[in-house]
């Protein structure tokens, strides 16, 4: 992974190649979608479904504002020592006898071992008092002195009225995110930018807030600085583990977007309107998922769901089999909506072995039976209509093959419509069948994404060829596009493919996107 960036990557910046201008002229007399936001393929026809989280920049902006003055420590000489302590701590405090069960996941790794140290992405969460809260690998107990050192670093820099953001040394990056009352630290061996890594830490922060609310977190630490938060998070570690896994694999988290189950718009409209009809006073969002794809989302007028919140819901549902039996009723904080309070979510599958999962988000924790009734009404309505059959068929093949697009040498792509916050992507082709290969491809996309969204030198387009594939990334105000071609492809071919692909997506858009989202 590390090597890819350096290895003869023929990158070009905007201006050297002319896709923007060329396309503009071609568009004049073609039905190809606009490059302007709101007219791109997949743009919603009425209102957007999500909070206008335009882009990645919106997402990280908050963090940057909070940071204010930064102290970027970039001197391997001095910091190398600190870092060794961080990543190679040898002396381990004796295991504290904690009664918190950590047996449930296989993380009893020896934290002094080489394998532990060589993990690509470490994530640690600690309290401001330096108490361990979460560690991706190894038990928190074994790491408490390491986390103490991290906290010491944060406080040391803070004492000078600065904020520590990252340390770069020795092929390794340490990124800090202080989100009072929590501190998150990532130790990475990747070439992703600090900004991307910060985004990942933010996700972890939101994951924890979604379980407890920020109000409760603040309350706890105000009264007891030394509180061991693992008591309250016990049994939820796997949610954070899974979220980290998704961050490496799920294009939606990279693109700040959500993907839809491909479904004929006539069928989707029936499903949506059936869901719309099953409303109730306390109901804010009705979300129908098929695995990791959105089927439809109906929301209360004027209430928007943020894609981060939706990803947290995806993660919750996808990580747990506990909703398989009966109907779940659980408090959930949607931190992008409101960090202060809990919603209550009614979570159930439409049929016992089905992938279709319905989530009804209510403001009233006493309203379980009303929600249950809403689900029943939705099901009754749906059962009478042929659209349900179409939906079940669609769930069986939730993706499409890239061959349908008809562009030779095109292996895979990600296309995000910015105004709708939705993206589409074909299934992985045969060359990317293994998990490692898929993660490698995702790594390449992440790298392209980093370049396009570079904090000081953002690019509009980027082309790179390597021995294994050629890649093109392109961003306009309307969409973001990442294409992966076989190594036989040429730059010219890649550029001409963009137009062809956009046309294809336009043609298929009412199947691949939710164009007319509904409200109650």
């Amino acid at each position: 992974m590390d090597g890819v960036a350096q290895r003869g990557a023929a990158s070009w910046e905007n201006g050297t190649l002319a896709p923007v201008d060329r396309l503009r002229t071609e568009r004049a007399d073609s039905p190809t979608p606009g490059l302007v936001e709101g007219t791109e393929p997949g743009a919603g026809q009425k209102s957007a479904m999500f909070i206008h989280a335009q882009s990645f920049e919106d997402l990280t902006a908050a963090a940057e504002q909070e940071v204010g003055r930064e102290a970027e420590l970039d001197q391997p000489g001095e910091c190398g020592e600190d870092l060794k302590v961080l990543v190679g701590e040898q002396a381990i405090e004796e295991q504290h006898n904690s009664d918190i069960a950590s047996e449930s996941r296989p993380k009893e790794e020896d934290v002094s071992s080489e394998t532990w140290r060589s993990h690509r992405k470490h994530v640690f969460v600690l309290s401001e008092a330096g108490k361990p809260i979460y560690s991706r690998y190894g038990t928190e107990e074994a790491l408490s002195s390491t986390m103490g050192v991290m906290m010491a670093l944060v406080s040391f820099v803070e004492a000078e009225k600065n904020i520590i953001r990252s340390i770069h040394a020795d092929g390794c990056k340490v990124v800090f995110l202080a989100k009072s009352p929590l501190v998150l630290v990532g130790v990475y061996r990747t070439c992703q930018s600090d900004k991307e890594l910060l985004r990942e830490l933010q996700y972890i922060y939101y994951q924890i807030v979604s379980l407890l609310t920020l109000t409760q977190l603040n309350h706890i630490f105000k009264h007891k600085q030394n509180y061991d938060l693992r008591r309250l998070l016990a049994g939820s570690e796997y949610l954070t583990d899974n979220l980290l896994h998704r961050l490496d694999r799920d294009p939606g988290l990279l693109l700040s977007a959500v993907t839809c189950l491909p479904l004929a718009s006539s069928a989707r409209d029936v499903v949506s309107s059936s869901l719309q009809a099953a409303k109730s006073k306390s109901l804010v969002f009705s979300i129908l998922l098929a695995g990791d794809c959105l089927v439809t989302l109906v929301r209360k007028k004027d209430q928007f769901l943020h894609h981060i919140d939706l990803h947290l819901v995806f993660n919750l549902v996808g990580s747990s089999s506990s909703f398989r039996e009966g109907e779940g009723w659980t408090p959930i904080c949607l931190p992008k909506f409101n960090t202060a309070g809990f919603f209550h979510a009614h979570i159930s599958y439409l049929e016992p072995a089905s992938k279709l999962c319905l989530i009804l988000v209510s403001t009233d924790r006493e309203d379980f039976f009303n929600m249950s009734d809403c689900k029943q009404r939705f099901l009754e309505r749906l059962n009478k209509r042929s659209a349900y059959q179409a939906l079940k068929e669609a769930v069986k093949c939730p993706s499409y093959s890239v061959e349908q697009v008809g562009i030779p040498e095109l292996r895979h792509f990600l296309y995000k419509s910015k105004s709708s916050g939705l993206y589409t992507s074909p299934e992985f082709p045969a060359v990317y069948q293994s998990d490692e290969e898929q993660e490698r491809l995702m790594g390449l996309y992440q790298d392209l994404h980093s370049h396009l969204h570079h904090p000081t030198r953002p690019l509009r387009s980027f082309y790179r060829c390597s021995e294994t594939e050629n890649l093109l990334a392109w961003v306009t105000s309307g969409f973001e596009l990442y294409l992966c071609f076989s190594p036989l492809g040429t730059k010219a071919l890649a550029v001409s493919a963009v137009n062809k692909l956009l046309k294809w997506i336009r043609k298929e858009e009412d199947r691949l996107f939710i164009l007319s989202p509904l409200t109650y």
Partner: protein
Amino acid sequence: MSAMRVDAKVVMLGKESVGKTSLVERYVHHRFLVGPYQNTIGAAFVAKPIQVGEKVITLGIWDTAGSERYEAMSRIYYRGARAAIVCYDLTDSSSFQRARFWVMELQNCEEHCKIYLCATKNDLVEGDRSLRQIDYHDAQDFAEEIGAQHFETSSKTGNNVDELFQKVAEDYNSTAFQYMTAEETGVDLGQKKDSYFYSCCHNN
């Protein structure tokens, strides 16, 4: 409300991983799922009809999560419950402490809720007696003290599970009968009221 006519609300309480979900799983689906333990998130509801004599009573079972995270929220799950199955793990003494906590909580907040003290994972202590951390008689004494029924169960073998829920339903049935006659007529407790109850039940 067609699908959700519930006669009696039953709540499962107890420390995390004592086996509440497994108990419900065994009772409702007659199976024991092996594989990695999955904590319940929030709570799960399932309605289960059960035959008591001539009648069918639908239990609305709330399987709550044992994690402390949900403790503040637990009232919404046990409020108005007619029966609480308070579980502890025979191989984990701290889970018995937690069971005591739940009993206190119920006694304070839900005086009409009948308590069933339920030991879980009996199969483990049958296999290896040294694993037992809660003496049968200690638990039995505690149960008598609080006026609760006491069961030792195993979701793995199914031992005593049906009996537990059957008992819950029967107790409900006989007290419901008393409640109803007392409420509806104010007198005639213990009189021959079967036919009356039957029709009343069907009008719900």
